[in-house]
């Protein structure tokens, strides 16, 4: 059974220029020891989806749909219960490490806060755990580092510190929003390997938001592809990457420089990324799609099962055919 | 017309006030039948009434007519007391911001020096040395006021010159004057323009203050500050003499501030 299940999630922002439907009927689940990747281009609603789960959205957001945590409706919980779950069993790593860390508190104090809130440890045990956590995320001389402020850390170390704070209460689920996008590849590699170790050794569930298909391919078990606030395809990484059943996933994978002959022309996706404030009827990808048929422009395709655990919302699913030579 | 519909209400109000002031300045006779300098000994110190909405002064001169006829001088003050320091300050700020280094350090000292004195005190001191009158007032305001424009301009240029479009200009081999005046200036001028419009309100107050002190416009030239000064002796018996010109100053100031704020939004560059 899924640890977390999200059903028919909708998020609408009220803005001065009218409502913006940023997340439009998204459903997925994650089990213990599983890594789910959420990919999509900038503005497709990945961060909003992630933040809607633990109710961490801005005040101008209206959320509907059900989010169940171990079967319990997360959005129906009272504040005290929600606070206990959030930061304890469900931890979040935000996209921007500097804005998510408190600049005027030493890292050690920020870790301590989480431990005080979510564990029964005494002061000495909390300190010991703090040192252990920094060591775990690969920060050397952890004892001195505990007393330092975020600005004394490099970008990579701040991101690790964020992850250490998130992991403090040994969460059962980690929601990570582009945890490595701002980092160098060698540091990204270290952090992803660390997260995978936690998933493997402790059975933590991980939802990883990213726009790097490579990160998904190497890190995730399953993937949910988002386009213009909607889910267009979900399935195991293997199925989705090797036999995409949505024209957008298909086009995206084909546009990557792969094993093709050096300096051969790439296959770009025509047109511009969609504007969420100007939704189109029918399939959101239709204006850029090379597989369109008449109903694409008028009737929105629903997410349907293509094979066991592989769903896609594309009329051309069967016509995409050939395997991607990645 | 469509342009007007798109403008925000506060800006429209500000522009309307300024337009009215401009009309007063251009054709003062069109708004009142009275001669601003005409004595009327039958209506000395008359309280506001239908015939004299602002009342009259101790010589029976109509205060509405005098306030309206003063507009030309006050608008002139608003304009000249900002344009001269504005131009000088913009140019200096542009160069200081661009060249930086030693030039900037020197400029910093100079700014520190000027801002240690209250603006008004410094201007009064300079006018006192040069002698009273509008021209000397403009000179004094320019000597002191450019600093504020230059400071604004300098910091904006510092930001703009690191923009990649400036790097692109350099790589394209454009000359420094071209980069400064065609590229940096249009992108850096917005805060200066906005400040200038707001500064016009302050300039009117300054002109009025100096007029009041007898250092600015000289009687019988009607100027709002001079009008208030005239009224000060009658403040308990005929408060309208000072009150109405004072109100006019406030309204004019409001017009400039509203316009300045509106302009700030309007000139915002779209990214």
């Amino acid at each position, binding site marked *: 059974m899924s640890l977390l299940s999200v059903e028919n999630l909708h998020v609408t922002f009220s803005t001065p220029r009218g409502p913006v439907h940023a997340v439009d009927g998204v459903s997925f689940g994650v089990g213990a020891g599983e890594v789910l990747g959420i990919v999509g281009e900038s503005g497709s609603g990945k961060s909003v989806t992630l933040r809607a789960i633990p109710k961490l959205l801005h005040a101008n957001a209206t959320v509907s749909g059900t989010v169940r945590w171990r079967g319990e409706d997360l959005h129906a919980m009272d504040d005290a219960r929600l606070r206990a779950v959030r930061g304890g069993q469900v931890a979040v790593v935000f996209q921007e490490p500097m804005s998510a860390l408190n600049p005027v508190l030493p890292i050690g104090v920020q870790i301590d806060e989480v431990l005080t809130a979510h564990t029964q440890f005494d002061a000495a045990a909390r300190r010991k755990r703090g040192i252990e956590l920094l060591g775990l995320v690969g920060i050397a001389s952890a004892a001195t580092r505990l007393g330092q402020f975020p600005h004394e850390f490099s970008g990579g170390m701040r991101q690790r510190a964020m992850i250490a704070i998130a992991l403090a209460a040994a969460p059962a689920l980690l929601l990570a929003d582009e945890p490595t996008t701002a980092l160098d590849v060698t540091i990204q590699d270290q952090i992803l390997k660390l997260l995978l170790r936690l998933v493997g050794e402790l059975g933590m569930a991980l939802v990883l938001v990213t726009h790097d298909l490579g990160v998904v391919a190497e890190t995730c078990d399953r993937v949910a592809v988002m386009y213009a606030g909607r889910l267009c395809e979900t399935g195991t990484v293997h199925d989705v990457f090797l036999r995409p059943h949505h024209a957008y996933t298909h086009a995206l994978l084909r546009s990557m420089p792969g094993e093709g002959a050096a300096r051969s022309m790439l296959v770009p996706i025509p047109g*511009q990324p969609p504007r969420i404030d100007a939704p189109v009827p029918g399939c959101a990808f239709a204006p850029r799609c090379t597989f369109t048929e008449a109903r694409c422009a008028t009737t929105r395709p629903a997410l349907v099962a293509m094979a066991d655990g592989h769903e896609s919302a594309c009329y051309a699913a069967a016509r995409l055919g050939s395997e991607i030579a990645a | 017309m469509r342009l007007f519909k798109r403008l925000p209400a506060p800006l429209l109000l500000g522009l309307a006030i300024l337009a009215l002031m401009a009309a007063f300045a251009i054709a003062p006779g069109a708004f009142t039948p009275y001669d601003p300098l005409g004595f009327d000994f039958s209506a000395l110190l008359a309280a506001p009434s239908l015939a004299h909405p602002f009342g009259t002064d101790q010589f029976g001169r109509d205060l509405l007519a005098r306030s309206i006829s003063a507009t030309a001088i006050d608008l002139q003050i608003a304009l000249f007391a900002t344009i001269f320091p504005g131009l000088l300050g913009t140019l200096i700020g542009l160069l200081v911001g661009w060249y930086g280094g030693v030039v900037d350090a020197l400029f910093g000292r100079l700014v520190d020096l000027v801002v240690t004195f209250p603006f008004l005190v410094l201007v009064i001191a300079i006018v006192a040395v040069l002698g009273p009158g509008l021209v000397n007032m403009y000179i004094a305001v320019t000597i002191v006021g450019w600093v504020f424009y230059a400071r604004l301009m300098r910091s904006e240029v510092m930001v703009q010159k690191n923009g990649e479009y400036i790097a692109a200009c350099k790589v*394209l081999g454009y000359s420094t004057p071209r980069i400064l005046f065609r590229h940096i200036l249009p992108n850096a001028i917005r805060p200066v323009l906005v400040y200038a419009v707001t500064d016009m309100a302050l300039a009117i107050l300054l002109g009025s203050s100096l007029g009041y002190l007898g250092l600015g416009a000289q009687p019988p030239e009607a100027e709002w500050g001079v009008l208030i000064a005239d009224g000060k002796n009658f403040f308990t018996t005929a408060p309208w003499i000072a009150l109405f010109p004072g109100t006019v100053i406030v309204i004019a100031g409001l017009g400039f501030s509203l316009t300045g704020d509106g302009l700030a939004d309007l000139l915002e560059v779209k990214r």
Partner: protein
Amino acid sequence: MSLLSVRGISKRFPARRGMVDMLRGRPKLAVHAVEQVSLEVFRGETLGIVGESGCGKSTLARCLVRLHEPDAGAIDFDGADVLGLAGPERRAFNRRVQMVFQDPYSSLNPRMTVGATLGEALMVHNVVPKAEIPRRVRELLDLVHLMENAAERYPHEFSGGQRQRIGIARALAVEPSLIIADEPVSALDVSVQAAIVNLFMELQDRLGLTLVFITHDLRLVKHMTHRVAVMYLGRIVEVGPTAEIFAAPRHPYTQALIRAVPQVKPGRRSGEAAVMGELPSPLNPPPGCAFHPRCPVATAACRETVPGLEARGGAWDVACLLAG
């Protein structure tokens, strides 16, 4: 024949010292952004420059177009010493070497129409007679696949990818022979990157351009460059033919970098990180080989000797004492 030849250039940025540092008499520090870099760019090729954030790629690029003056070293372009150029000769150099910038938003003047931006470059360099400028602007827009009516519009009316096309058109306006592109696709959405990459390759073939392509995307480098230079902490640690280097990298850092790049191929998970540790501070680079604190095979000698960029018995240059 090499079109551009760089010999031993260095660029350091003095670091700001706080009052405390000064009072304590701490020494003046400098960021060693580019250290002793030597490099050849051959006519008609695409040379990739890769490396992690802060390793000096942009600084090197800016030295090549003289946006920065190097503290030491020499740059030859087409046989002429670039650093000595002034006046009209410098302007002539500017015409032949152009740059495309990373940020499509800040690299265009927001208060000028696209037509004015392109026209200005044409006018300043007298590329075409004045009367021909509008026609040439249309040709340039067509060359980068933008619509003709783009000329009357302002940068904010375009998407990131379209703006990058405008930046490319501006560079092409003066008909350069070398274009230095500093992360030209990094700021773009993945789905529009491919189109810009194609444009570079197409223009290069059509116009016979030489291209220096700076990026941290190794997948892209592998796909589109002929040769690649790998930078680490201000120095080039390996330079040679792209296909060969990707097949058998000789420097331990190149090896780690290539291993760390996630491939768009499912299930290549391995448990081990490619390399541990972080980039040391460029204010205080380690002695000897700058990579030694992170290097899995470092020896005592690595801590003392700075390895030079040499062939070391292989087909291309590498700066590692143990290579061979």
